[in-house]
């Protein structure tokens, strides 16, 4: 439960941060983690739990970073932030209860894969739209694709 609370805190602050503020995340992050460490220190001062706490902090940072990167790609890409946010946020939230680093790492790998796919999609879309706009040969082929007489245009220049 503690983990879910912290994640909601992180995600809501992320949405604030994603709008053009200078991302001095330490200010907002510390309040989040300090409430968490309060909970921890109130229980037995267990070194194993402290170790887990620092691991979880790194993982939390990585997750937040990937989410921010997805939003950045959304703003760049032709898909749009809203589309990406609608797809990504439910999936992030559904996994917010995980505590095992191994499981979290699997989710991180999957997110990195999705990020690569979005970048590739973007690249392809950009290349193809520029080619359609600027490549005269390509446009001619598109226009005359089904026409009977091709002998009019240069058959050498391809």
């Amino acid at each position, binding site marked *: 439960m503690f983990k879910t609370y912290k994640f909601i805190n992180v995600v809501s602050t992320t949405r604030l941060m994603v709008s053009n503020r200078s991302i001095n995340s330490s200010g907002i992050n510390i309040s989040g983690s300090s409430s968490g460490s309060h909970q921890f220190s109130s229980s037995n001062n267990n070194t194993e739990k402290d170790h887990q706490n620092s691991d979880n902090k790194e993982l939390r940072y990585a997750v937040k970073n990937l989410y921010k990167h997805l939003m950045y790609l959304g703003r760049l890409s032709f898909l749009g932030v809203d589309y990406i946010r609608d797809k990504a946020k439910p999936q992030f939230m559904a996994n917010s209860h995980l505590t095992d680093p191994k499981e979290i790492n699997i989710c991180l790998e999957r997110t990195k894969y999705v990020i690569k796919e979005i970048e590739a999609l973007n690249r392809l879309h950009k*290349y193809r739209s520029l080619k359609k706009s600027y490549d005269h040969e390509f446009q001619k082929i598109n226009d005359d694709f089904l026409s009977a007489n091709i002998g009019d245009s240069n058959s050498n220049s391809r």
Partner: protein
Amino acid sequence: MKIFVPVKRVIDYAAKIRVRPDKSGVDTNGVRMSTNPFDEIAIEEAVRLKEKGIAKEVVAITMGPKASEEVLRSSLAIGADQGVIVNTDKPLNPLSVAKLLQKLAETEKPNLIIMGKQAIDDDCNQTAQMLAGLLKWPQATFASKIEISESKDSVKVTREIDGGLETLSMKLPAIISCDLRLNEPRYAKLANIMKAKKVQLTTKTPEDLGVQLNENLKIVSVEEPAKRSGGSKVTTVDDIVASLKKHSLI
């Protein structure tokens, strides 16, 4: 070796645009703006040269209103070292840009100027050529491959021309303008974008450089292009195969 990369802030390639009713231009209110795609290719090429160790410094340059700084920041995030903005609110045309770049080149003395072949908003395809004329440097336009010699004093450029490819060799300093197939631009990492936000940019004005902006060009009217014909439905697969064969695509 120092490389200059002029970049331009244009309407995003995927943004839907409308022509203003009075035909004076395109409606830019609330439309997404981004770096000119050909200039992104130029920045990518310059950063690759830096990563190979051939170039020491990549300077990104832009001209226009203050909002153009975002284009410099994204260039810095990709790997440029410095950002220079020539701040002016007056309309710019290729000759003014070439004159401003000429002044900057004469003071900073770069070895290479790489830029995109044209901007996707005005499609002038003139700045590189005019700059070469003003500086009296050799030029290679529509580059699809750039190779700097071992001795770093000459460059071999493969150009895309009607009917094929042409390879030119020229001494540095030179001007190269990039075509679509030169490389695939990278996406900046979030950490680099954050770092780029804190970098101090150099701001100049045309008055600082002592350049009189050319105001001889006036846009008379802007209209939508004629709808391209083409695109018809087929009934059988054989039709498609026959057409593909006719265009020697398969």
